[in-house]
């Protein structure tokens, strides 16, 4: 059974790419109530495909690879799924399923109409976002990835302003133009790489670059692409678009955007730095990225602490959590990590970074959805006035709390394991200053969570008046996702070998000046 999966791995990749596209077109044509039905029917199939890909990668202990149209790169375009891609595909599928189930109550065609705007847009865009994310995680060709990035932008922007308020329109427009600026910089870099090496295939580029000094075009290309992708990832200080966009969108959309959309561009930064030009990792530029990440952790944390609204708080928390991802750049590369790689068979920073990606995705989606439930039942999300919500919505608040626990890095959550591994790696590289940042970030996270939870658990004052009863099944969805983010920390570390497949991280940077 598993061997069959490995043998048919290339078709699985194609399936992962075209399934959401085909569903999207079908939903677009049929419209109305069919859009929701088609999207919901796609969820389990997409999840199964993602699971199958992960199983095939794990069982075959090698990346899956396929040349589209039978044309091998550099002329053709290839798809590839290594361990990290498989994990991202799986995370995407899990979050999609949860958000899809959660959103049913919010995006139903009202009775008496055949089709209405918000449900039609939401369900088609959900599939669109899925297609875009899968294209990003599977792409092996830099231009193909550009198209995938644009797919992502086009799917994400309308989600931001789904409710049509002027504020969200402004947020969406700002997001769009800034994201487009990022895409153009990325495209410019890709063009220059083609000019220097005559191929856009990541594997071939890496082979042609080899150990040689980089072409001048490649250097500026790396800088341009990284900067462009940073703009789309909303790393401090180019995060201007994120708080209003993520906080203004409907809860289900915020969950998708915060948990998944920003991770796609980060994933491409990883691809460029680790797969195309690993030489970069041994340079000052890696320290620059980590320094920005550190600034994001501290700055985002303080700003989250000072927000008046729950969804804004969560949005700033995303800015802080993105910062952690950038700490891995100087920590994976340094030669001192080599002994670690031999010992543990898993460079800590790399595994920690991947764990952070996944656990933040689950936790943040759960938090946004929990905030959505709270806002829907209270009619507002002012943190000051959340008093007593712990009694009214105990399960929602519990889910919010344990998701927050994972963000804060309390054991035994996935966030704790991620931070533990990053701390170990920082110490092993002799770069202890990142440890202080990680810990300070944890303190700030704890502080802003305390603000929410202490208010919500308060017994003073009258019980909150619920304008709308909360749907128990939606609470279960949120709780399930939050539990996943916590349980990730209980998975024995040895089973994270999937993250390593297809990528020889341990060798990167060793022996470089």
């Amino acid at each position: 059974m598993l061997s069959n999966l490995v043998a048919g791995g290339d078709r699985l990749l194609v399936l992962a790419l075209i399934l959401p596209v085909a569903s999207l077109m079908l939903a677009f044509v049929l419209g109305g109530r069919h859009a929701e039905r088609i999207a919901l029917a796609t969820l389990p199939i997409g999840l199964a495909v993602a699971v199958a890909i992960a199983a095939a990668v794990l069982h075959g202990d090698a990346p899956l690879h396929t040349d589209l149209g039978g044309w091998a790169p550099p002329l053709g375009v290839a798809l590839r799924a290594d361990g990290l891609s498989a994990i991202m595909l799986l995370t995407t599928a899990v979050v999609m399923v949860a958000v899809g189930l959660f959103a049913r109550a919010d995006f139903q065609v009202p009775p008496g109409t055949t089709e209405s705007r918000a449900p039609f847009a939401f369900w088609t865009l959900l599939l669109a976002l899925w297609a875009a994310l899968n294209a990003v995680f599977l792409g092996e060709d830099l231009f193909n990835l550009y198209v995938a990035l644009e797919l992502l932008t086009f799917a994400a922007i309308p989600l931001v302003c789904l409710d049509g308020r002027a504020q969200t329109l402004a947020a969406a427009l700002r997001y769009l133009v800034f994201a487009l600026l990022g895409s153009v910089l990325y495209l410019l870099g890709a063009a220059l790489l083609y000019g220097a090496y005559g191929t856009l295939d990541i594997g071939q580029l890496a082979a042609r670059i080899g150990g040689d000094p980089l072409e001048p075009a490649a250097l500026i290309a790396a800088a341009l692409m990284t900067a462009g992708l940073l703009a789309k990832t909303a790393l401090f200080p180019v995060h201007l678009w994120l708080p209003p966009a993520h906080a203004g969108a409907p809860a289900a959309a915020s969950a998708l955007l915060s948990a998944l959309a920003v991770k796609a561009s980060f994933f491409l930064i990883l691809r460029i730095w680790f797969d195309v030009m690993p030489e970069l990792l041994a340079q000052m530029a890696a320290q620059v990225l980590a320094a920005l990440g550190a600034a994001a952790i501290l700055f985002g944390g303080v700003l989250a602490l000072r927000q008046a609204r729950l969804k804004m708080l969560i949005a700033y928390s995303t800015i802080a959590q993105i910062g952690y991802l950038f700490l891995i750049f100087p920590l994976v590369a340094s030669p001192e990590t080599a002994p670690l790689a031999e010992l543990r068979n898993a460079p800590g920073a790399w595994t920690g970074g991947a764990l952070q990606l996944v656990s933040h995705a689950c936790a943040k989606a759960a938090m946004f959805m929990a905030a959505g439930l709270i806002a829907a039942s209270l009619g507002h999300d002012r943190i000051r006035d959340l008093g007593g919500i712990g009694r009214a919505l105990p399960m929602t608040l519990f889910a919010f709390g344990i998701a927050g626990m994972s963000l804060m890095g309390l054991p035994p959550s996935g966030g704790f394991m991620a931070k533990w591994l990053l701390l170990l790696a920082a110490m092993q590289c002799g770069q202890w200053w990142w440890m202080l940042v990680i810990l300070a970030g944890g303190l700030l996270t704890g502080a802003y969570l305390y603000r929410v939870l202490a208010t919500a658990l308060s017994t003073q004052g009258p019980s909150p008046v619920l304008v709308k009863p909360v749907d128990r099944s939606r609470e279960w969805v949120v709780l399930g996702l939050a539990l996943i983010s916590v349980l990730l920390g209980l998975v024995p570390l040895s089973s994270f070998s999937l993250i390593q497949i297809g990528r020889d991280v341990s060798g990167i940077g060793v022996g470089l000046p």
Partner: protein
Amino acid sequence: MSSVTLFGLCGAALVGLGLYGLIVLPGALRRIIAFNLLGSGVFLLFGVIARRGGGVIAGTGSDPVPQALIITGLVVAFAATALAVALLRRLLQETGRDDWDEDERSDR
């Protein structure tokens, strides 16, 4: 200096010009135009790269792969512009404003 290099430098200058306009110009429309300038500078640079690698097939003097990519890119850029303009027109309709800079604090 050849014409190709000249156009390459022109592309580089257009990128700079587009970046400048995108950053300093007030108002969404002007920024969208500047974005298009920036994009066309990028495409021009890519076209120069294509031209430098051309001249192999009779009848075409340019590497067809970048050409195809540029065509794809042009269509994507148009779609992006259309979405941006649609957002801008809706924003105008709702608020009468043509930018997204002001009123930051009201969301907080």
